[in-house]
């Protein structure tokens, strides 16, 4: 295959894909009689124009970082983990069990224990498909998809029959104790100023009770764990022996056998890490935002993680940027539905287009660029 310069492959291809998606989205908006520029303005304003907007955008970003990292770790081992959704739900169960177990004295302790539980539960849910793949050759795509459904059913059972407090009507766990409440980003000392300035007059807007209104933004301290996870995953994959073996196994199973890399071990470890990362998403949504376990807690973030990984080129830095983009699309799309007559489904259309162009049609853009580049070369000669 003819090659592109690396900068074009890493920067230009996703950028052009994104522009194409935006172009088609604009055409759709024109077709339904709306102004694309106005819509874009509302999306940007909705996602980045206020403390609340930032709060939600970063909240979604945090979730997508975890699920995106989950997908890339498995992918580097040549495994397509589509079970992030179920693993994140199980992670939520782990978080709920830990948070409800004790009257936690301080959030840091609760966070530590809950993170561990989320990772262990997520990893455990990935372990079964991983074992079936490694030992029996059952295809991981099929089994992880099926395990998403089993996870849903299991969570419903746990919520309805085990975790639901007596007398409560909805299928949900009890609210977590106050000691397990994670600080919102707007409450962090060094970010308080940033969120405060986002309000038009530069001062924090207060409720009648005198509490800053932004204090309930859902983005929370988990964001920093997500950022740390990006670094750890990068170190793992490109600096450790385990990462070396994972990548080698993912590139060529036959060659790995020649090198004496144990396929069962690598499949298991990669999937445990992948499941653990997906599970860790639950500290963001279950512990940091909902503060109790609800049905369908992952809300599709497990699947968005696949798109994030695709767009992020299977690199943690790419995942971070793609997660931010999808966070913007999520929150900006919600603002569209809230503030305009544009149907809320438009947000799904836009997301779909982004996934289509950055994920599925990415090769088309690359071929176009290769052609353009060869043209440039010929002209130079």
């Amino acid at each position, binding site marked *: 295959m*003819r*090659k592109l310069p690396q900068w074009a492959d890493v920067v230009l291809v996703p950028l052009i894909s994104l522009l194409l998606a935006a172009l088609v989205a604009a055409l759709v908006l024109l077709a339904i009689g709306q102004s694309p520029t106005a819509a874009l303005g509302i999306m940007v304003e909705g996602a980045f124009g206020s403390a609340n907007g930032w709060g939600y955008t970063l909240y979604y970003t945090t979730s997508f970082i975890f699920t995106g990292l989950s997908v890339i770790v498995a992918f580097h081992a040549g495994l397509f983990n589509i079970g992030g959704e179920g693993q994140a739900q199980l992670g939520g169960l782990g978080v709920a069990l830990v948070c409800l177990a004790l009257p936690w004295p301080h959030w840091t302790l609760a966070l530590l224990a809950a993170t561990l539980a989320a990772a262990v539960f997520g990893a455990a849910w990935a372990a079964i498909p991983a074992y079936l793949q490694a030992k029996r050759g059952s295809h991981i795509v099929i089994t992880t998809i099926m395990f998403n459904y089993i996870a849903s059913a299991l969570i419903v059972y746990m919520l309805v029959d085990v975790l639901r407090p007596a007398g409560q009507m909805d299928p949900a766990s009890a609210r977590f104790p106050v000691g397990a409440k994670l600080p919102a980003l707007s409450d962090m000392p060094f970010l308080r100023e940033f969120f405060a300035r986002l309000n038009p007059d530069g001062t924090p807007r207060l409720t009648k009770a005198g509490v800053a209104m932004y204090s309930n933004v859902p983005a929370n301290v988990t964001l920093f764990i997500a950022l740390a996870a990006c670094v750890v995953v990068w*170190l793992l994959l490109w*600096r*450790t*022996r385990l990462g*070396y*073996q994972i*990548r*080698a196994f993912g*590139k*060529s199973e*036959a*060659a790995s*056998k*020649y*090198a*004496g*890399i*144990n396929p069962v071990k690598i499949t298991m470890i990669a999937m445990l890490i992948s499941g653990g990362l997906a599970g860790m998403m639950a500290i963001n949504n279950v512990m940091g935002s909902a503060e109790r376990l609800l049905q369908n807690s992952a809300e599709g973030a497990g699947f968005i993680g696949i798109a994030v990984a695709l767009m992020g080129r299977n690199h943690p830095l790419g995942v971070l940027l793609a997660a931010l983009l999808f966070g913007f699309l999520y929150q900006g799309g919600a603002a569209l539905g809230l503030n305009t007559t544009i149907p809320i489904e438009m947000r799904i259309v836009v997301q779909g287009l982004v996934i289509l162009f950055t994920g599925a049609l990415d090769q088309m853009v690359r071929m176009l660029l290769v052609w353009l580049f*060869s043209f440039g*070369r010929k002209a130079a000669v």
Partner: protein
Amino acid sequence: MGATANGGRQETAAPSPYAIELKGISKAFGPVQANKDINIAVPRGTIHGIIGENGAGKSTLMSILYGFYRADAGEIYINGKLTPIPDSQSAIRAGIGMVFQHFKLVQNFTVLENVILGAEDGPMLNTSLAKARKVLGELSREYEMDVDPDALIEDLSVGHQQRVEILKALYRQADILILDEPTGVLTPDEADHLFRILNGLKEQGKTIILITHKLREIMEATDNVSVMRRGTMVGTVKTAESSPESLAELMVGRKVLLEVEKVKATPGAVVLTVENLRVKDDDGVERLKGVSFEIRAGEILGIAGVAGNGQSELLEALGGIARATGRITLKGVDLPLVGLAANGQTRREAGIAHVPEDRQHLGLIMDFSAWENVAFGYHNDPKYQKNALFMDNDALRADTEAKMARYDVRPPIATLAAKNFSGGNQQKIVVAREMEQNPDLLLIGQPTRGVDIGAIEFIHKQIIALRDAGKAILLVSVELDEIMSLSDRIAVMFDGHIMGTADPETTNERALGLLMAGVAGDPK
């Protein structure tokens, strides 16, 4: 080089003496100029050889002639007439037939069905089959190509399968036959028969283009030979007026030592003992059927044989890749043959290095950089670890650069991905990695397959040097020349058995060829 009159575009009364003329053919793949202004004229009724190192552009040129690629520039004349060939259908219409290195036959069809495949006369097969049976009978008689038209392809030997490919081309009324590396999978006897067939075809006025890297075949079979080097045609000479040495020099651009220089081996203590080794493949078919031998320190045991007779399984069992039964002892210590303990890591720790037959599939991760590949299989080696957590990538890169310098890997860029090196340089990376581990036993399979002449010379020298350093070497190769020039003892494999052993000093190709065909000797 005979070019026709300048007004070659117009039909002239006198027919051109050339079956094929290529004029100014150029083809680039991105920045790589695969063919650069190639001119070649092939006289009708001759066998024309094309030789060149790997990546010299032979296959690209033939693919253009057969319509797989379109040339960026240049013209193709068939029998003196300008003939554009945009696809392989046009090539077939122009009377060109191609016999690929890897046959394109349907394994569970009969010979007859394969011959008419794609050339049926109508929706009903009966008439086509009857016609093909008649034509096939005539062709077989004419060219001594007896093939049972009702045999299934999977039941035929490789040599017969190749004949079916030739018959396919002839059935499509090809006047020009292109054969790409036709003898790679044949025993010497089968190769001789092939050349008899080709001579018969030549006498009937057919034109044959033979692509090969084996100088011996060029000398034996061709009338003229064109030499390619790095995308250009460096010359066309009459075979009778050339010599292997002069052709090799043309190919490489410098003098090449064709004979391996070595002193007589001085074998020491037994290093490897193999007793009754058996291997089954994934389908449960026994591929290695009880093989026993030993190798001493400071000697090379060459395993000859046609590909697919158990040599691969032997290497894989010794290298810890395939499960086996029997017994393998290295320096008096039994090695595990089954279970978790039998793997590539434990074999390396025991002192076995392995240059696999298929470097691109097994020996390298093609997407990994050279330095990552130098650690491949030795990634647990303490010298590549920075601490308990991290690998020492800097040390690894430095180590790779040193190895690349010692083994003359070009370009010497440690961060370049393995896939971006030529076949010969990829092989040098693998050879450097395995030999520099200072193993007690080196397993080396097809050390020079797809490797250019310059690199072959280098790799052969390295193998001899390792032997002289007192190491035991198991050499597996389908190239008889290579086996005969490197080995201190030769064992020939056929159908999972060792058919017999020979002394390279006293044996000859014919005797080995009989063993390779399973004719002489008794399976032990």
